[in-house]
């Protein structure tokens, strides 16, 4: 029994740290509130969809920035999508970088965009790792 209580405490602490470090924001709490006995896998389902969507978008962004002539309008449209979906699941740090990324697109600043893309990829891999850990423990 002690083992389970200890695990639960660790789960609470781990989740709290994700909020504290800014990986997640209040929106993630909203998602958890929408999960109940009738919809047990809701959070995992939505976040998994986010991962798939993000993978696709990051590929598109990498490709777009690799073109000899960058289509900033298309780039911005993809960043807008990523910004929206990260906001919807509470992936706070990714959302923040996307805001900068959109500014770089607006300025048609290729260097800035490349930097932002690196940042997004970095934040994405961090939060993905954290969330996968969280789901392994909480289910």
């Amino acid at each position, binding site marked *: 029994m002690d083992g389970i209580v200890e695990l639960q405490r660790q789960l609470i602490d781990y989740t709290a740290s994700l909020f504290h470090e800014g990986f997640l924001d209040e929106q993630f709490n909203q998602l958890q509130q929408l999960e109940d006995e009738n919809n047990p896998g809701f959070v995992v389902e939505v976040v998994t969809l986010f991962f798939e969507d993000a993978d696709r978008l990051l590929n598109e962004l990498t490709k777009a920035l690799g073109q000899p002539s960058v289509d900033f309008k298309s780039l911005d449209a993809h960043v807008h999508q990523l910004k929206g*979906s990260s906001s919807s699941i509470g992936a706070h740090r990714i959302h923040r970088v996307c805001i900068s990324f959109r500014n770089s697109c607006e300025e048609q600043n290729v260097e800035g965009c490349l930097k932002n893309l690196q940042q997004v990829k970095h934040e994405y891999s961090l939060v993905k790792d954290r969330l996968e850990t969280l789901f392994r423990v909480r289910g």
Partner: protein
Amino acid sequence: MGIAAEAPFHVLAVDDSLIDRMLIERLLKTSSFHVTAVDSGSKALKLLGLVEDEQINEEPPSIALEAHQDVEVNLIITDYCMPEMTGYDLLRKIKESRSLKDIPVVIMSSENVPSRINRCLEDGADEFFLKPVQLSDVNKLRPHLLKSKVKDEEDQQIHDKGINETEVIAPDKTIPKNIVTKNG
């Protein structure tokens, strides 16, 4: 035969983002709405019975956009930024349709642009929600639905009265479908 429970309100959700569709659907279902979610304005119009045809568009709008609503929708909630047809375009088409104009429309957007918000509200949107949409936002929908229901019932009473008294000839002689009340 016992007293049947009121059928839940039917909300049509429109959003090109799969994640946001999942989210809005869950929010609405949690609030006991029946939900249909589609990924574009054109699919929404199709479901509502409004079919656009390039040839038909040459005719006067009142003939072209006559709706044959098979599915009763009590409220439409739509994203603003969508490819091809924006939420604003969808709002305009709905408000221009004789049979659909009284359905409350709510717009959602991730961007807080006051001019955008004002334009939507001025052109007939009942609410404008900033994304991510919360349960507290969804709770604001019921009054619009109840108000719409009361209007439907009043319209029905007026309609019934019209039949009993001298026949009033409407300019277009059509009776909008949304005047038909739900069976209890």
